[in-house]
């Protein structure tokens, strides 16, 4: 069933040529490509059942409402959530985290309270907490890196010292988008709950690479984006425990999130509608179910093994270049960051592109991490299910060209 070479044909874009070469797409941590079933579902919504949800008493609105709520059920089932009420659709991971920061954070964080995050965080799981803490005049504590050199690793032992009775939240990534590190979430959640602290997991990368069981993981908030796991852009998910969501005030206010409005007061809708003001991204939610179907068919365990193998192979090859430094964690399964001595990642990416290879060059929205690594940028190769060993051969060929041009 799982055959990376064969399943390429399910992704129309992978037959494209870039600069005369077949596209080799290695920027999956930024966004993944979409199988035809997802694209067809998107198209089908607009061609056959386009209407707003939860409003009209007509066939089309009933169809779209049903499909939209089925998408919520599908996501809940995929994550093994207790109820679809625990699934809030947002625009993206960033909005999911901001929802928690504004709604839960504004209500629950006071001057003497603390939030802990990590140095690995993407800006989307860093700035909301930094700004909240600044506003509340309190301190954001940051789990640092281990002081050893490569392979990079978060110093989780520091968390035991950072956590206090005043800590209300640990906001941490499930998988770094730079180093690929997957912190020991079970350990973190256990430690947090022993200290009456909540845990938010930025699962933007993790959700695409590991089957998340929210009941087993027991985290309080989990945020991720559809587009990083074969789904469309413009759709994010926030999972949160039902009791937390019920107690939280709404984030955005407006249509679709009320029971009754008078001139002076509003009674808000129950969850999940309370957190979904305005017309949602209906087409994206519906087509995301096809992405989840596809992932279920291929099995995330297979995908995980595959991207792990590719990462190991690539790391072995890169280690043969004396000019290369790796900024990659030992347990990375899919993300490999590196720098080349005296050559800027932008230039690496530019030359790769001339070979039809798409990689990422930059700070990856992780300025605090880059500052600690004393780097302006890294080049990042990120794999997904349709990548093959041939792609690694092409990478090495392009790398040789980069070195040839600059030396």
């Amino acid at each position, binding site marked *: 069933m799982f055959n990376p070479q064969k399943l390429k044909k399910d992704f129309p874009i992978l037959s494209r040529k870039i600069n005369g070469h077949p596209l080799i797409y290695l920027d999956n941590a930024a966004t993944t490509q979409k199988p035809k079933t997802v694209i067809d579902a998107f198209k089908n919504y607009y061609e056959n059942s386009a209407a707003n949800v939860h409003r009209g008493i007509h066939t089309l609105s009933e169809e779209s409402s049903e499909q939209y709520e089925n998408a919520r059920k599908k996501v809940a089932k995929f994550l093994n959530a207790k109820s679809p009420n625990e699934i809030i659709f947002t625009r993206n991971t960033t909005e999911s985290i901001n929802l928690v920061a504004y709604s839960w954070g504004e209500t629950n964080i006071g001057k003497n309270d603390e939030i802990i995050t990590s140095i690995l965080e993407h800006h989307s799981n860093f700035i909301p907490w930094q700004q909240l803490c600044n506003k509340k005049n309190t301190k954001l504590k940051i789990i640092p890196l281990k002081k050893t050199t490569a392979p990079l690793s978060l110093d989780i032992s520091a968390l035991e010292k950072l956590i206090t009775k005043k800590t209300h939240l640990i906001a941490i990534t499930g998988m770094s988008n730079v180093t690929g590190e997957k912190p020991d979430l079970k350990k973190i959640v256990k430690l947090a709950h022993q200290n009456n602290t909540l845990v938010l997991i930025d699962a933007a990368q993790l959700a695409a690479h590991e089957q998340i069981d929210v009941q087993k993981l027991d985290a309080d908030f989990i945020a991720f984006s559809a587009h990083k796991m074969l789904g469309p852009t413009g759709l994010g998910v926030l999972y949160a425990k039902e009791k937390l969501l019920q107690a939280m005030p709404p984030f955005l206010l407006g249509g679709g999130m009320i029971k009754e409005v008078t001139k002076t007061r509003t009674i808000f809708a129950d969850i999940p509608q309370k957190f979904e003001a305005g017309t949602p991204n209906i087409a994206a939610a519906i087509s995301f179910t096809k992405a989840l179907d596809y992932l279920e068919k291929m099995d995330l365990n297979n995908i995980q093994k595959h991207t792990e193998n590719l990462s190991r192979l690539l790391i072995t090859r890169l280690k043969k270049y004396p000019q290369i430094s790796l900024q990659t964690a030992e347990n990375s399964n899919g993300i490999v960051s590196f720098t080349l001595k005296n050559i800027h*990642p932008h*230039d690496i990416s530019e*030359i790769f592109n001339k070979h039809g290879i798409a990689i990422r060059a*930059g*700070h990856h929205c992780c300025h605090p991490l*880059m500052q600690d690594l004393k780097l302006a*940028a890294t080049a990042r190769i990120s794999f997904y299910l349709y990548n093959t060993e041939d792609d690694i051969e092409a990478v090495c060929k392009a790398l040789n*060209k980069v070195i040839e041009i*600059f030396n």
Partner: protein
Amino acid sequence: MPIQTMDDLYTEIILDHFKNPKNKGQIDASKISKNEILLTATEYNPACGDKVTMQIVIKNGTIEKIAFFGEGCAISQAASSMLTEHLKGKTLEYLSKMKTEEIYKLLQIPISPARVKCALLGFIAVKNAISQPTECIPKRRSEAESPYSHFYPKAP
């Protein structure tokens, strides 16, 4: 669209300026004399975290010294290096009227939309140095005062 080759972008002249940049370093502020003014500004490329700081020393309305420092790709570093060579000895008026097209002319390479900011990083920094410097030595008497009003009558 014609396919670009590697050599279109990484020409000998670009690579030479990247590997051996001209006027790279920091100007010593303590050596600024009475009739000189040192203006500094930094520009960032949020896409990749690169930054270039440009410094110019103005004497009698002319750019007497110019230097840059910071991190960046071959294109941003080469463009900054070439720009410093181009601007040395030019008047402030010339700089204030200088257009982006002139940077592309200096570089003589095709600049794709993704590389525009790389090509212009140093140029934007030096433009900022005369319009909104992050540092100005000697210090201005007031915020409202143009940093170079005594050299250049009209603010750009």
